[in-house]
C-alpha cells in the first residue's frame, strides 16, 4: 500500500451520559431517564503524519471525542482504534498510553502549580521508565524545553512564573516527553492571544514536520483550523455532518450547517459589514430534533428531513466530501432555494473587495 498507515480510527464511536435526576425523585415525579447523547456514532480515520480537525458549536461533542480518543472515557458504543488495536481492550497497555498524549485548552489548570517545570516535564519520563538515571533525565528535559522554545534554565521555575503562551509550551513539552506518535489537542490555543497563538501554531506545525506526529485537533476557530488541518470533520449535536479535505471544506462547503458556520465567521474583510448569524439556538442533545438534527435551523429542511436521519456519504458532485444531508443527495442544495451565497468564503481579499 502506498497510502500512509492509519494511526487512529474511530468506528461508530458513541458516548452517552445519564443526566437523570436521582432515582427516587424520578419515580415520585414519574420522570423517565434522561440520556444525553454527547457523541452519537461517528467514524473517521487519521493517516500517519496528518492532522484531522473537529469543529462545531459549543456542546456538540468535540471534547468528548477527544477524551475517548486517548482512552479517558470508555465509549458507550463503537471502537477507538490506535494502530488497529482497540483502546478499550488495550487500556492496560502502557506502551499505547505512552504513544498518545493530550494537550488541553487551559494551560493554567492542566499544570500542577506546586511542581517545578522540570518535574512536570519529567513526570511521563519517570512513569514510563523511558530514560535511566538522573543525569540522562535532566538532559532529556533540557532538550525538550529547548525544543518548545523555552530555556533549560526555566526548569527550576514554577508554572505561575510563566505567561499563558509559555505555560502552553510547558504542556507541549510534557506531552512530548514520552515520545508520542499521536497528540490529541483540545482547543490548545483558544485561551491565548492572537500573537501567542501564532507562536504555538508554528511550534506545533514544526514539531509535526520534524517528528512525524499525527494530530487530532479541536478548535472552534475556523481560521486556525484552516492553517493546521489536512482534513476537517464538522460536528453537529454529536454527529459528523461533513468530513472532507481541509481546503475543500473552505472552498466548497456542502452541508447547510457548514455553509452557515462559514458565513458566521468574523473576518478582517468584514470592516463595516454584517455577518449572517446562524439563526436559532443549538438544540439540546437530550431531546435532539427528529430526523436530521439540524432541521429546525435549516433553510432547506422538508418533510423527509424531519422524519429521516441522513447518513454520511460521498456528496453528489464533490465525492471527496462526505456529507450527511438529504438536500445534497437529492441535488436540492443549489439553485434559487439554496442557502445564502458563499462567494466570500475561499476568495482572496482582492477578489472579495
Amino acid at each position, binding site marked *: 500500500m502506498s497510502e500512509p498507515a492509519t494511526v487512529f480510527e474511530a468506528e461508530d464511536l458513541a458516548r452517552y451520559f445519564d443526566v437523570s435526576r436521582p432515582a427516587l425523585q424520578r419515580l415520585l415525579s414519574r420522570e423517565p431517564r434522561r440520556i444525553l447523547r454527547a457523541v452519537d456514532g461517528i467514524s473517521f480515520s487519521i493517516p500517519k503524519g496528518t492532522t484531522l480537525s473537529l469543529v462545531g458549536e459549543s456542546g456538540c461533542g468535540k471534547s468528548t471525542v477527544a477524551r475517548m480518543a486517548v482512552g479517558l472515557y470508555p465509549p458507550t458504543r463503537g471502537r477507538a482504534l490506535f494502530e488497529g488495536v482497540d483502546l478499550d481492550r488495550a487500556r492496560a497497555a502502557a506502551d499505547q498510553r505512552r504513544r498518545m498524549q493530550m494537550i488541553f485548552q487551559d494551560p493554567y489548570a492542566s499544570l500542577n502549580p506546586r511542581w517545578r517545570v522540570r518535574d512536570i516535564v519529567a513526570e511521563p519520563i519517570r512513569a514510563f521508565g523511558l530514560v535511566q538515571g538522573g543525569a540522562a533525565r535532566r538532559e532529556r528535559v533540557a532538550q525538550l524545553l529547548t525544543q518548545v522554545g523555552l530555556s533549560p534554565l526555566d526548569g527550576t521555575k514554577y508554572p505561575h512564573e510563566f505567561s499563558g503562551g509559555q505555560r502552553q509550551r510547558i504542556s507541549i513539552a510534557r506531552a512530548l516527553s514520552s515520545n508520542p506518535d499521536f497528540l490529541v489537542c483540545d482547543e490548545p490555543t483558544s485561551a491565548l*492571544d492572537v500573537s501567542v497563538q*501564532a507562536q504555538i501554531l508554528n511550534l506545533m506545525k514544526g514539531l509535526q514536520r520534524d517528528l512525524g506526529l499525527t494530530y487530532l485537533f479541536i478548535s472552534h476557530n475556523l481560521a486556525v483550523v484552516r492553517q493546521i488541518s489536512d482534513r476537517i470533520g464538522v460536528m453537529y449535536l454529536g454527529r459528523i455532518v461533513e468530513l472532507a479535505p481541509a481546503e475543500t471544506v473552505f472552498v466548497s462547503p456542502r452541508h447547510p450547517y457548514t455553509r452557515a458556520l462559514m458565513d458566521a*465567521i468574523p473576518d*478582517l474583510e468584514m470592516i463595516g459589514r*454584517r455577518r449572517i448569524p446562524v439563526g436559532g439556538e*443549538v438544540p439540546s442533545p437530550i431531546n435532539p430534533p427528529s430526523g436530521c438534527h439540524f432541521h429546525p435551523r435549516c433553510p432547506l429542511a422538508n418533510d423527509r428531513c424531519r422524519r429521516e436521519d441522513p447518513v454520511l456519504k460521498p456528496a453528489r458532485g464533490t465525492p471527496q466530501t462526505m456529507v450527511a444531508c438529504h438536500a445534497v443527495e437529492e441535488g436540492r442544495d443549489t439553485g434559487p432555494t439554496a442557502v445564502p451565497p458563499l462567494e466570500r*468564503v475561499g476568495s482572496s481579499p482582492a477578489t472579495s473587495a
Partner: protein
Amino acid sequence: MTAAPLLEVRNLRVEFPTRRGTLVALHDVSFSIAPGEILGVVGESGAGKSMTGAAIIRLLEPPGRIAGGQILLEGRRIDNLSQDEMRRIRGRRIGAIFQDPLTTLNPLYTVGRQLTETMQTHLDLSNSEARKRAIDWLEMVGIPAAAQRIDSYPHEFSGGMRQRVVIALALCAEPRLVVADEPTTALDVSIQAQVIALLKRLAREKNTSMMLVTHDMGVIAETADRVAVMYAGRVVEIGPVREVVKHPHHPYSIGLMNSIPPLDHRVERLAQIDGAMPRLNAVPPGCPYNPRCPKVFDRCIVERPDLLDAGSTSAACWLYDRAEAPHV
C-alpha cells in the same frame, strides 16, 4: 471628529500599591469617544484593556487606584466623584457588559425582575410600564417568546441567551456609554454574530457610544469605528478601524495584525512576534516595545515616544517623529 466627545480620557494613570513598590498599570492613557461611536480596544492580555474600562466605570479592583489624569463624561469630570455619585452614573449613564454573563446575573431572581428593578432604579416607571418595557427589551435582544420567558431564571437560558439578557440589562436604563469587556469571548461564533449584530444595531438606533474591549480582531473589524491598540499599559496606536487593521503604523500593531491566521488561505508559517509582553515591574526604559521591535534604533532604548502623528493614525513610535526618524 466634529461633535463634542461623549467620553474623554486624559492622561489616565492607574497604580497598584504593593509591598514591593508601586506598579503602574496604566500610563498616560488618552482617547475620546464621540456620541454613537464604537471604539475598539485591542492588545495582548495584560496590556491594560480591562483596567481602562474598570477605571472609567470606577470598578477597579482594590488596591488599584486612579493616580492621575481625568475622565470626562459629556464634558463633566467623573473621576473625582464619590462612590455614591458614581453608583448613580453606572447603570443610568454608563452601562457595563462583562465577559461572563453569570457574574452579572443574579441566579435567584427572574430575568424580568432584574430588568424591571434596574429600570425602576434609574427611570421613573410604574410597575406595569417597567414590565412592558422589560418584555420589549427581551424582544429587542432577540429572546424568542419574550412575554413567556420573562419570568424564567437565568439558568433556564442557554449561554448565548444569557449574554443577550446581560446586554438588555446594560442598556435598559438607556445609558449614553456602554463599556463592553470581551462581551463575546465566551460565545460560539454563531451566537457571537448575533450578539455583535445586536450591539451594532443598538448603538446606531439609540446613538449609544461604546468602548468595546476584545482580543478578537475579526469582531473589531466588523464592529468598531475607531481602534486603540494597547501595549504594556499604554495606547500605542489609535485611528480609524480600516487604517489600524489594514495599514497599521506602530511596529507592535503591525506584528499583531500579521499574526492573525488568515481565513481565506493557508500559509506555511504564520508571522509571529517573538518574545512576550513585559510584566508591569519589568517594563524596559525607553520604548516599552523595544526588546521585541524589529525596527528598534538607538533613541528607542533611552527615550519613550508619546503618540505622534503617523498620517492616518497616531502611533507612539519614534519612526514617526518627522524631525529625526531614519526613513521607514
